[in-house]
C-alpha cells in the first residue's frame, strides 16, 4: 500500500476525502452511504491511521440516526483486517462499547453480534486484558441498556478465560439475574440457555440452576416466560434424574402458571422441552401437562398447544405411543374440533392430519376420520382449507377415497366463497388435490369449477386459475390437455367479455410452455392469429406479446410465413400501444 499522508498531490485522494467528509454530512443518506464504505476509507488511511484517528473519531460520534449506527455496528464486526489483524482487534472495542449502550434495540443487538464475532479473534491474553474488562463495565453500567448488552457476551468469554476470571464472570452474571430492572432480567433470562452450554456441569448445578429457578419465579410474567426458553437447553445438559430433581419442579410450575402468557410459552416450546427431558419424564409429566394445555381456559394457549399435537405425538416413545395418544390425547382433540375459538380449530386443522401415519389405518378410519369430517364442515373457511391442504398425509394411510365424498362439497363451497382470498387459497391447493384425487374424479366433479375460476371477476383468481391449469397439465399429461383443457381455453377466445379473451391469451402463454411446439402450432396459435383482429386494442397488443413469447419455440419457416405477417399487420395498427408491442416483438424475434 502506498504511504498514506504523502505530501504529493494525489487525485485518487479526492473520492476518499469526500467519503470522509460525508461521515458527518447533514444528509442522513449520505452519512449512511459513507458508513457503508467505511472499509474503503480505512484502506486508504492504512491500518495505523485507522486505529489512531478513524476509530477514535467514530467512537466520539455515536449520536446518530439509528440506521447509520446500525450500519456502523455491522461494519465494525468485519473490521479486524483493516486495523491490522487479530493483534489489534481490541482497538475496535471502544466504538462497539458505546454502540452497545444506545437505546435502540436493533443497534445494540447488532453491536453485541459484532462484539461476539470479534471476541473469537482476540488472543486469550487480549481477551482477558481488554474484552473482559469491557464486559464488566457493561455489566455494571449505570444504564440498563448496557447491562442488557452485557448478557449476550458471557458465553463467548467464559470458556476461554482463567479460573479466577470465570468466578468473577459468574458473579457478574448472578448480579444481572438479580437486577432491579425487568429489562435486564429479561435479557439475562434469554441468554441463560447459551451460558448454560459453556459453563462447567458442577457450576451449572450449583450456580446457574438456582438463578434459573429464581427467574422462572420472577414477579414479572414477562421475565418468567423468557426463563422458559432456557428450560430446554438446561434440561438437555443434565442426566434424567438431575432433570427430574432440578428442572421439573420449575417446569411443572410454569405449565400451571397464573399467567396465560407463561403457559403459552410452555405450549410453544413443548416439542423442544419434550426432546430435552427424555422419554421417561415425558410419559409421567409432560403428557398430563399437555392435556391441561389443550384444555387451557385461554384460547391462545390452546391454539399453541394444538399446533404441537402432531410433533408431540410423533416424538412419544414408540413402546406405548399408540396407547397414550388414544387414551390421553384423542379425547382432548375431540373437544378441540368444536372449540369456540376459530384460531384453535384452525391450528388443530393444520396438524391433525399428520396423526394418521402415527396411528395407522384402522385407528384413522375409526377415530380420526370423524374429526376430519367435522372440521371439513366447519363454518370457518380457514379450518376447511387447512384440512384440505394436508390431505396427502391421509392419502398415504387410508387412501383418499374414504374422504372424497366429504371433500367434494367442501371444495365446491370454498371455490364459491364470497371472499376472493378464500377462492385463491383453494385454487392454490388444486394441483395437489388433483394429484391425490386422480384424473377421473377430477374430470367428473371439478372441471366445472375450473371454468368458473377462469371467468372469475377478480383478476387474481383468473391469474391463479391459469397458473393452475399449467400445473394440472404437468400432472395429467398432454392427452388430458388436448381433450379437456385446451378446448375450454380456446372457447374463451370468442367470449363477449374482452377480459375473458385476455384470460384465453394468458392461458395459451402458459400452456404453450408445457404442451410443446407441436401442440401449440396445431391447436393454439391459429386462435392467437384470429384474435389479432379483435376489436379491443388491449387484446391486440397482448396478441403481439404472446407471439413474442411463443416465437422462440417455433421454427424459422413458420415464423416467417405465419407469425411475421401477423405482427406486420399489428405494426400498422391505429393504436399506438399495439404498434409498440408489435415492433418490440419483431425486434426480439429478429424479424424487423
Amino acid at each position, binding site marked *: 500500500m502506498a504511504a498514506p499522508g504523502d*505530501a504529493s498531490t494525489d487525485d485518487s*485522494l479526492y473520492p476518499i476525502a469526500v467519503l470522509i467528509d460525508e461521515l458527518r454530512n447533514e444528509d442522513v443518506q449520505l452519512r449512511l452511504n459513507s458508513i457503508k464504505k467505511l472499509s474503503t476509507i480505512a484502506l486508504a488511511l492504512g491500518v495505523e491511521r485507522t486505529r489512531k484517528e478513524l476509530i477514535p*473519531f467514530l467512537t466520539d460520534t455515536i449520536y446518530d440516526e439509528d440506521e447509520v449506527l446500525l450500519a456502523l455496528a455491522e461494519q465494525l464486526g468485519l473490521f479486524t483486517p483493516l486495523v491490522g489483524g487479530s493483534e489489534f482487534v481490541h482497538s475496535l472495542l471502544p466504538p462497539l462499547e458505546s454502540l452497545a449502550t444506545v*437505546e435502540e434495540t436493533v443497534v445494540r443487538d447488532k453491536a453485541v453480534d459484532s462484539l461476539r464475532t470479534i471476541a473469537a479473534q482476540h488472543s486469550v491474553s487480549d481477551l482477558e486484558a481488554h474484552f473482559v474488562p469491557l464486559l464488566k463495565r457493561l455489566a455494571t453500567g449505570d444504564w440498563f441498556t448496557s447491562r442488557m448488552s452485557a448478557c449476550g457476551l458471557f458465553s463467548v468469554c467464559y470458556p476461554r478465560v482463567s479460573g479466577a476470571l470465570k468466578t468473577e464472570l459468574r458473579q457478574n452474571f448472578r448480579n444481572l439475574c438479580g437486577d432491579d430492572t425487568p429489562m435486564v432480567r*429479561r435479557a439475562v433470562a434469554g441468554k441463560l440457555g447459551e451460558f448454560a452450554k459453556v459453563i462447567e456441569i458442577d457450576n451449572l448445578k450449583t450456580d446457574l440452576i438456582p438463578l434459573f429457578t429464581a427467574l422462572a419465579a420472577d414477579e414479572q*410474567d414477562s421475565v418468567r416466560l423468557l426463563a422458559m426458553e432456557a428450560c430446554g437447553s438446561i434440561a438437555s445438559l443434565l442426566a434424567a434424574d438431575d432433570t427430574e430433581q432440578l428442572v421439573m419442579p420449575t417446569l411443572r410450575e410454569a405449565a400451571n402458571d397464573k399467567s*396465560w402468557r407463561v403457559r403459552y410459552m410452555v405450549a410453544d416450546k413443548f416439542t423442544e422441552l419434550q426432546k430435552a427431558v427424555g422419554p421417561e419424564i415425558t410419559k409421567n409429566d409432560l403428557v398430563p401437562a399437555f392435556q391441561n394445555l389443550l384444555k387451557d381456559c385461554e384460547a391462545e394457549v390452546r391454539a399453541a398447544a394444538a399446533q404441537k399435537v402432531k410433533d408431540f405425538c410423533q416424538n412419544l416413545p414408540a413402546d406405548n405411543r399408540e396407547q397414550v395418544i388414544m387414551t390421553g390425547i384423542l379425547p382432548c382433540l375431540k373437544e378441540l374440533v368444536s372449540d369456540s375459538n376459530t384460531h384453535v380449530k384452525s391450528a388443530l386443522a393444520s396438524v391433525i392430519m399428520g396423526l394418521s401415519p402415527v396411528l395407522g389405518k384402522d385407528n384413522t378410519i375409526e377415530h380420526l376420520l370423524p374429526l376430519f369430517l367435522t372440521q371439513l364442515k366447519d363454518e370457518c373457511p380457514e379450518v376447511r382449507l387447512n384440512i384440505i391442504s394436508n390431505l396427502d398425509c391421509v392419502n398415504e394411510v387410508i387412501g383418499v377415497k374414504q374422504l372424497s365424498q366429504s371433500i367434494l362439497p367442501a371444495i365446491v363451497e370454498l371455490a364459491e366463497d364470497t371472499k376472493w382470498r378464500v377462492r385463491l387459497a383453494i385454487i392454490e391447493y388444486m394441483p395437489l388435490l388433483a394429484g391425490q384425487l386422480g384424473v377421473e374424479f377430477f374430470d367428473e366433479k371439478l372441471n366445472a369449477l375450473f371454468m368458473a375460476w377462469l371467468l372469475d371477476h377478480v383478476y387474481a383468481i383468473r391469474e391463479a386459475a391459469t397458473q393452475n391449469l399449467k400445473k394440472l397439465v404437468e400432472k395429467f399429461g398432454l392427452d388430458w390437455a388436448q381433450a379437456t383443457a385446451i378446448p375450454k381455453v380456446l372457447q374463451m377466445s370468442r367470449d363477449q367479455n374482452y377480459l375473458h379473451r385476455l384470460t384465453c391469451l394468458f392461458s395459451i402463454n402458459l400452456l404453450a410452455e408445457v404442451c410443446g411446439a407441436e401442440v401449440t402450432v396445431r391447436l393454439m396459435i391459429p386462435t392467437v392469429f384470429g384474435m389479432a383482429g379483435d376489436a379491443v386494442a388491449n387484446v391486440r397488443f397482448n396478441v403481439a406479446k404472446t407471439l413474442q413469447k411463443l416465437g422462440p419455440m417455433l421454427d424459422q419457416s413458420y415464423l416467417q410465413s405465419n407469425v411475421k405477417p401477423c405482427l406486420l399487420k399489428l405494426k400498422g395498427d391505429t393504436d399506438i400501444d399495439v404498434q409498440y408491442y408489435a415492433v418490440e416483438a419483431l425486434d426480439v424475434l429478429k424479424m424487423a
Partner: protein
Amino acid sequence: MDSAANSGDLLWCFSQVKGTVEEDVTEADIISCVEFNSDGELLATGDKGGRVVIFQRDQTGKGCDGPRSGEYNVYSTFQSHEPEFDYLKSLEIEEKINKIRWLKRCNAAHFLLSTNDKTVKLWKVSEKRKRAEGFNLRDGTGSLMHDVSSITSLRVPVVKSIDLMVEASPRRVFANAHTYHINSISINSDWMTFLSADDLRINLWHLEVTDQSFNIVDIKPANMEELTEVITAAEFHPTECHLFVYSSSKGTIRLCDMRSQALCDKHAKMFEEPEDPANRSFFSEIISSISDVKFSHNGRYLLTRDYLSLKVWDLHMDSKPVESYPVHEYLRSKLCALYENDCIFDKFECAWSGNDRYVMTGSYNNFFRIFDRETRRDVTLEANRENLKPRQVLKPRRVCTSGKRKKDEISVDCLDFNKKILHTAWHPTENIVSLAATNNFYLFQGRD
C-alpha cells in the same frame, strides 16, 4: 416528612409562574397536561397547539445535601402533533396534547410519550455537546473548497465540544389503532409495553413495535344505541406488570389482570360505591363520572376524582372507598347552572404526593385543594399571579356557603368558572406541585 407530621401542616410557597400575563388567551396556548419525569428533574407540559415544553430543574446544588431551588427553566420546546384531517371520516383531528408520560431512563437521553386524540408518539430528548471539525473539502464555515489539487493528504475530522444543544426527535409513531378519542396512556412496569385508552377500547402496545397493538378491553356494544358507559381513564399498576385499572363514566373502576386472559373483558375486581338515594338527582350520573384515576406510588390504593369529590380506594376493598374528600361541595346546589355552561363535564385530574401522604386536585376560580390523609386536614389555595413574590407563603382561601360572608371569604357566586385548574402534577419525591391554569403554569413548593 416526619417533621411535617409533628409540626402540623405544610405551608405552600409560590415558586414560579410561566406563560403570558395577557388577559387575551390564545386557544393554542392553553395547557392541556403536565407531567414530572421519574426523578423529578424534568417537567413536561403539553398544550392545545400540539407543543410540548420541557422544563429542567435548576441544576445548582444538585448532588449536595441541603435544600435545592425548586425552580424550573425551559429545557426544550418542540411541536409534537400537527392538526390533521381524516379524509375517510371527514373528521378534523386536533393537535391538542391529551397526555404525556415519561419513560424510565435507559441512557443519557430522555424519552416521553405524547398523545393527541388519535396518535401516540415516542420522543427522544437528548443533549448534544459535540461537533466534528477538520474536514477535507470544507473549511470552518462549511463552504466547499473547490480546488481538488489542494488535497495533499487525508484528514480525519476530530470531535470538539460545543455549547449544549437540546434536541427532540420523534422516534416512533403509534397510529391507526383508535376509532375514538384517546384519553389515557400509561407505561407498564415491565418497561416494554404501554396502553392507550379511548372511549370504548384499550390497546396494548410494545414500545418498539408500531405496526401492531393488541386490544385488551373492548366495551363497544354491538349496537351503539345500547351504549351506556364510556372509558374515562386507564392506568397500569406501578409495580405489578399484569394489573391495570380503568374508570368509567358510570363511576365505576375496574381492575383487570392480564394474566388470566388475553382479552380482559372480564374484570378481576370492580370498585363501586352504592349511590346514596338521598342525593339522587338529574345530575347524579353526570357527577359520578370519574375523570381521573391514579394508583398510589406504593400500589396499594387508587385515587379517583369525580365531579365533586376525591376518593381513595383500597385495592383490597371494592365495596366503598376508604377515604372520601369533598372538593367543592358548595357547588352541589349550583349543578343546574354548571350544566348549562357545560362546566359539569370538566375533567379534573388528581395526583398523589411522592410519599402518598397527600392528595391533590383542582377546582374553579384557579383554586386547588390539597388533603393530608394522615391528619385529615385540607387546604384550599389559589394560583394567582397577582401579589405573589417568590417564596411567599400562600394564604388559604375559603368559600362562603351561608348567607353571611366572613372576612377573607369568597362567595360561591363570585367564583370564576372560566378559571379552572384541570391538570396537576406532584413531584415524585419532593413537595413541589405544578398546576396548569389555562395558559399559565404554576409551581409551588411545600415548606414544613
